[in-house]
């Protein structure tokens, strides 16, 4: 009976699990349903009698921070029950009635949904909770601001986040907003300084981002979040006076704090329609354009470098090569632009230099017209056009006596086509695939089936080969004669002491080998038949003759009265064995 005890235990435990497997229950519970925008709530998802994976990606009204997962097992009256608990901290991203949608929990490949939860988030602190970061911890708060709340699209603005602390904090983790609708770049290094507000001196950590709106209309910069542990003082122990532990470090404890800034609305204005002449460069900010030339006097065949430099503050990195009107007296080679752009608390600024190598083709004096740059001036809120100064170039005739060979098409100057790299003028994705074949299953073959399909032809071949061998063996003369060769050779090897028998077996072996080659049955052959059979079956006439010679030798010993020397017969046996090998 003792032997069965472990099995019984396993049986009861497994029965307990099986019974409960069907009763998997998934619930979601929030620790509070009313809270202020400065507070966080704890969402607890409980999975009964299983362990699951929770997908929180559908929560859109809150920032989700995981706290961890715990599992507990209970055995009551032989029934085993498990419970896994997933805890999350949820920080509201806006005020109003917010929604925690049903969350998908995957348990052993099956999906379960939690219940739906509504939470009311008010702008003012919840009276019942009595908590507010500002009200209870004015020694720690956040600030967020932007340099311009109504920029033009493409205009850079600076987002500033400040953490003001008058107490010690630890494990601070800052999560900046997603900056949806903007391209963003963090400005480094961060600023750290002291600031006096009222009677308190705050330590300020300041983080800045340069933002460039990429679409127009009302946008919202979501709150920045800060998670930290705040040191708070314990009540002093009246009996510990004078103790070595009576210092601020040992008299403090830490509490978890979640703080968030306000959402910042931004109204992004579109650029006014451009009605001026020329082409708008796409630059927004303050810019200037200059041009320089490496040397203004040079010879035909020599080159000079034309530099077009755009300098300013704004989206300078987006500057494209300006249109330059160059005389036909030059061949032009464009170089890669050089960028010197920095990012600081004013945003992006710097210069972008476009270089063109000009090779003189025709001698003479030429003017390069001013290069124009139209940009949107965000200070003046209007389009402006800057231009570089004109450049005069003098090309002298070539110093070489030989005239420079300039190949040109016959009278085709007027139809000259300048090839340019094709660039995108707009970006979008290609359309949907609308044919119904999109519903056909393109499932690949499973490994097992693939293996079977790959092996089965080999297997079938094996079966076919075996059956052919078996059927052929019965009546194929070649096989029958080949077997006779083996039998005769074996008998010959055993009859070395009896010359007559040995010679008889050798003759039979050789004749059988010839007949096997020819695929026919028989007992004897003439010399000419032997040669004919062998040659018809791909054996050279030389070899066929050697076979005939061997047969003649056997016959002459057998019937010619030659001395049957044992050494000679052994040598003959070896020769015939080798010949039979050759015939196979």
């Amino acid at each position: 009976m003792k032997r069965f005890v472990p099995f019984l235990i396993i049986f009861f435990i497994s029965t307990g699990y099986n019974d409960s497997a069907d009763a998997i229950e998934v619930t979601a519970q929030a620790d509070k349903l009313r809270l202020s925008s400065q507070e966080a709530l704890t969402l607890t998802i409980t999975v009964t009698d299983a362990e699951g994976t929770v997908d929180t990606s559908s929560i859109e009204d809150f920032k989700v921070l995981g706290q961890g997962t715990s599992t507990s097992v209970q055995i009551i009256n032989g029934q085993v029950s498990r419970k896994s608990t997933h805890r999350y901290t949820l920080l509201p991203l806006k005020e109003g009635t917010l929604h925690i949608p049903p969350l998908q929990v995957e348990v052993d490949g099956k999906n379960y949904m939690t219940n739906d939860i509504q939470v009311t988030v008010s702008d003012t602190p919840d009276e019942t909770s009595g908590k507010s970061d500002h009200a209870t911890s004015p020694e720690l708060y956040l600030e967020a601001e932007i340099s311009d709340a109504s920029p033009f699209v493409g205009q850079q603005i600076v987002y500033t986040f400040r953490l003001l602390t008058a107490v010690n904090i630890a494990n601070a983790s800052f999560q900046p907003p997603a900056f949806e609708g903007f391209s963003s770049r963090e400005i480094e290094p961060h600023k750290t300084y002291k600031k006096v507000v009222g009677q308190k001196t705050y330590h300020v950590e300041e983080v800045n981002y340069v933002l460039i709106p990429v679409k127009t209309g009302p946008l919202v910069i979501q709150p920045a979040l800060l998670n930290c542990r705040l040191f708070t003082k314990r009540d002093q122990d009246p009996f510990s006076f004078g103790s070595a532990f009576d210092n601020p470090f040992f008299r403090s404890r830490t509490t978890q704090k979640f703080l968030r800034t306000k959402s910042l609305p931004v109204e992004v204005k579109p650029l006014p329609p451009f009605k001026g002449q020329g082409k708008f460069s796409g630059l927004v900010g303050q810019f200037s354009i200059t041009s320089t030339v490496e040397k203004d006097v040079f010879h035909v065949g020599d080159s000079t470098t034309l530099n077009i430099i755009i300098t300013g503050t704004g989206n300078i990195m987006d500057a494209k090569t300006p249109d330059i009107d160059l005389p036909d007296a030059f061949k032009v080679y464009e170089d890669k632009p050089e960028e010197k752009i920095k990012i600081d608390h004013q945003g992006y600024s710097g210069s972008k230099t476009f270089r063109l190598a000009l090779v003189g083709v025709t001698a003479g004096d030429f003017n390069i017209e001013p290069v124009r740059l139209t940009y949107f001036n965000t200070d003046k809120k209007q389009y402006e056009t800057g231009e570089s100064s004109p450049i005069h170039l003098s090309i002298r005739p070539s110093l070489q006596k030989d005239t420079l060979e300039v190949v040109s098409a016959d009278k085709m100057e007027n139809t000259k086509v300048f090839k340019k790299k094709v660039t995108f003028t707009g970006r979008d994705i290609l359309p949907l695939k609308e044919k119904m074949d999109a519903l056909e299953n393109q499932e690949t073959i499973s490994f097992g089936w693939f293996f079977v399909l790959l092996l089965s032809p080999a297997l079938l071949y094996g079966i076919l080969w075996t059956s052919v061998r078996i059927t052929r063996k019965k009546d194929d003369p070649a096989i029958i004669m080949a077997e006779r060769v083996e039998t005769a050779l074996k008998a010959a090897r055993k009859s070395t002491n009896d010359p007559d028998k040995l010679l008889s077996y050798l003759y039979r072996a050789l004749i059988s080998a010839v007949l096997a080659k020819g695929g026919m049955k028989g007992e004897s052959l003439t010399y000419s038949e032997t040669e004919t059979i062998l040659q018809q079956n791909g054996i050279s006439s030389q070899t066929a003759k050697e076979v005939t010679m061997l047969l003649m030798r056997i016959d002459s010993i057998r019937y010619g009265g030659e001395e049957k020397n044992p050494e000679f017969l052994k040598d003959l046996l070896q020769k015939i064995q080798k010949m039979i090998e050759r015939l196979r």
Partner: protein
Amino acid sequence: MNRKTGIFFKSFFYVLMIVVFIYFSDQDSLAQTSENSRTFLNAIRLYREGQFKPAADEFLKIAQTGVRNGKLFYNLGNTYLKIGKLGHSILWYERALKLIPNDPDLKFNLNFARTLVKDKREEQRPPLLNVLFFWQDLFSEKSIQWIAIISNMVFWLILASYLSPIPSLKTATSVKVFKYLSLAIALVFSLTAFYQYFAKRYINYGIILPEKVSVRSGLTETATELFLLHSGTKVKIERQDRDYYRIYFSRDKIGWLKKTHAAMI
């Protein structure tokens, strides 16, 4: 009723049961196909009307019925990109790439989506076997498997023809050429298919889904944040433990992130 009649009726009953089963299972499958067709057409209509979220839900419904089709996955990628869910979009494009690797529209859209990913791709040294089997990207997995099976079958058929009593088959040059050609193709494609089965089982890649994800040094939310990854970034999933994946982004960027923050391709 004698014994023979009993056997006959028994056999008839089993055959009837099989026919009924096949009939009803076919009916279910037909009904599912018809339902999928309706959902598909509805999804396309919604997409055209600019209702991308409901369109994505409809396409997803079809995918959840078990349909694995590169074009369907491509449509899901397009729809998620229109919603602004870059991570989901790249995930479905990558899944489509496995089934229709040569589709030009897919390549174009995937390249476009990749330009929107914030993380600059760092070196991800491909496995040595990936280098050896570089041609696998030219064919879909299914094509590779069928080419291997068919060329292997041709090779064995040629060998079987040698067993026939026609001696000229053995010596014909064209037959010899076909024999070695089919053997070479069968070997190359079978090895590629075996590698793909191996890769599918042991080499996993995933796509980051949320806008921004902290990759941490351990399997808790309080573990040190090592670096941040953004939506759409492709990472190698080395292993999984509880609710976390251990991911490899580049040689010096390895860490743990929550399973819900990345989806396997």
